[in-house]
């Protein structure tokens, strides 16, 4: 796993698909490749209410990626300093081994270049101290990007807040 983590707050995600367009407009991609894709699940009835989830699927930037060792030309690589997995387009020959290898469908096909293109957490932006495009412009700010250990804390904080509020409700309801 890279030292970064992309957290999606399901509660706030409204499935507006803006993250996908932020990504594609930033990368200048044609129709076809979707580096980060929202996968809607549902709606289904849960406790009497319709509920739907929108699961954001960018690349997970695995610690031990499936895609890197299968690449015969070493185009698919991991940045030593932070573990971001990316494609060096000059070396990619379009063999699609990485597409076969990745269990989550992260590497995408660029129909115009005949090469693979994938989520690189917008590393050019990250190197400038900025967030990936999808995170920076998320409509509801439900996407968060940072170091794994900080993200972990974000989740705990949110959980704590929720629990605290519920406790308050329970207590005041007595």
């Amino acid at each position, binding site marked *: 796993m890279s030292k970064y983590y992309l957290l999606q707050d399901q509660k*706030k995600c409204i499935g*507006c*698909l803006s993250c996908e367009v932020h990504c594609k407009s930033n990368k200048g991609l044609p129709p076809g490749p979707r580096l980060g894709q929202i996968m809607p699940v*549902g*709606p289904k009835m849960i406790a009497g209410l*319709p509920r*739907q989830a929108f699961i954001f699927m960018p690349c997970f930037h695995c610690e031990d990626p499936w895609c890197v060792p299968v690449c015969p030309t070493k185009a698919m690589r991991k940045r030593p300093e932070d573990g971001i997995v990316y494609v060096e387009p000059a070396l990619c020959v379009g063999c699609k081994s990485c597409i076969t290898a990745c269990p989550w469908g992260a590497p995408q096909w660029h129909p115009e270049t005949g090469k693979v293109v994938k989520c690189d957490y917008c590393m050019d932006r990250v190197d400038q101290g900025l967030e990936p495009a999808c995170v920076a412009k998320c*409509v509801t700010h439900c996407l968060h990007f940072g170091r794994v250990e900080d993200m972990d804390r974000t989740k705990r904080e949110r959980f704590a807040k929720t629990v605290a509020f519920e406790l308050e409700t329970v207590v005041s309801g007595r």
Partner: protein
Amino acid sequence: MCTVRCPIKVVVENDDVIWIQGNPHVGGIEGALCAKGSAGLALLHDHERPQYPMIRAGARGEGKWRKAGWEEALDYVADRLKAIIQEHGGHSLVFGERTNLNTHISKTFCKALGSPNHFTHDALCKGSVNTAFRSLTGYTDAQMAIDYANTKHIVLYGRNIFESLEIAPINNLLKAMDQGAKLTYIDPRVTITATKAHRYWMIRPGTDLALNYALIHTILKEKLYDKDYVRRWVSGLNELAAFVEPYTPEWAEKETGIAAGEIVALAREVAEVKPAVIFHYGYRGAHHPNEIYLRRSIIMLNALMGSIEAPGGLVIRKGPKDAGRGSFSRYDTAQEFPKITVPRFDGSGHEAFPLADSSHGNPQRLAYAIENEDPYPIKALIANRFEPLQSIPDSSAVRRALDKLELIVAIDVNFSEIAWYADVILPESIYLERADSLQLVQGARPQLRIRRQAVSPRYDTKPAWWILKQLANRLDIGQYFPYETIEDIWNFQLKDLKGVKLEDFDAKGFVALSDKALFFDRKDGIPFKTPSGKIEFVSSLLEKAGFPSFPPYEPVPSPPEGSFRLMVGRCAVHTHVSTQNNVLLNELVPENELWIHSRAAAKLGIQDGQYVQVISNPLNTNGRIRAKVTEFIHPEAVFMLHGFGKTVPAQSRCYQKGASDALLQENISDHIGGSPALDETLVQVRPAK
């Protein structure tokens, strides 16, 4: 990209846009941008948009054009307009647009030519909301705002707030929900908003009014209303109480399908957190012929909760005057024009729509007025980013009527249906390529916003304010357009505003006119603009015009076997009718689908994903649309997204994809409120051959 105009920040390198994001300085935006916002880059570089002035060379709609220079195209339009006006008068010109930052200039154009016939898209969307608000408060809907951030309970009637989205409002609402605010959503269809709600009711289509009468019944019977507020600010409470007496929750249960106990529970729940309650009066308010009475009932619910002019409720928008900052100038009201004595072409403010807001007009009357020359012959149409062929119901009738016109001019950024059917296309620069008039955003915190030109036009296009001035010069009305540059327009707009200079916009793109939220005094200072100065449940506006304030509820019959109520709506990815061909947005939502309940589909032998044909009266059919077979729509309704089924080959990505709702809708209106009834039409569905 969108009429919401969420403020943006554009990063430019070498005269090219490299990045668009939400304005980081605006609360509720903080950099956020929707899919349409980011897709502005694709529009900028799209070769499938008009690139130079074009004059029709074949039959209308045939797609044969010749390229013209601006001088030639403007001369061509002006010469024809001059001849038409000479023979038939200035009023034979109608000018339609989507309300925009330069509306004060296009209105100036019509006034100077002696035409009362400037209209906007507004009535097609929310004319009845406008009239409902005026009948109760004296204000229009546009003069009302919603304080989402501080609300404790919001009730949405099909206001699909998380798909038909405005960024700041939804972030403010999500913040409120984080702090415990409740969301009640009522819609025959499970939208994304429904999946985020604390309470969802799949109401029987068209019966929201019955639900509201039962809510009001309960609130009055159990005295759940804000007594101080109602005593001070409401007139006609007794009349309302007598009227809703028979409309019990049990009665409403039969009509709406919502359990009586649930209705009572909602009434009690909202009353507990009043006045921080919002019964949302709607974004689009154009569904059924009794629309004004539904919108009035919603506004009355707010009044009973004391939520009009309350934090967490509705807020009367404040302008520069309220902030003690002088006034904002408009060319259409700052100048003297020749007196116009003829009535409007569309019956707005006259017989057809006596109470409608005639400053917007009623474009659904366009085909009728042209065909019948009633009240007089119409000979020319200028459409500025207004789409009569997809926004007005019964679009084939509109197309037939257009054939009678001597001149159709489209000022547009797209090869829209009307541009393709026009005689001349005057291509407009897109919002990234032009500057526009300053925007006054009224609200609890009024502010001014600026749209600067980010890059030079990619093609030979111009801003509408420039185009209209060039036409005006050729039509001998140039004196009403006393500007050369956009800075001239800005300086004119600011001339009577205290303490605002152009350079004040440099830092953040906007200038706040008040640093604190402005509220009127709830005890004694709410300046309702009705004759009585109160919220008039018994409306003098309606009664004087001969319309009842409380007409008896008319039950909504279930559609006959095999028929469905056609509902239309929006998704988060497209703007109305204008983005279906955008390369980035088209990929995400390339066509619309027909939502149909699984039981109904099974009876008709329709499978999920199969192409079906949709047929309405009088024999309007839509060729092919994919069925989305689902449990998540009321069995009496079918639903499709608005704005598909396009017929312009130059828009290759969306050409003939999906079905056009406007082709199916019958042209029925709420003649009191002014909206068309866009969800009233019954359709049949069958598998496509």
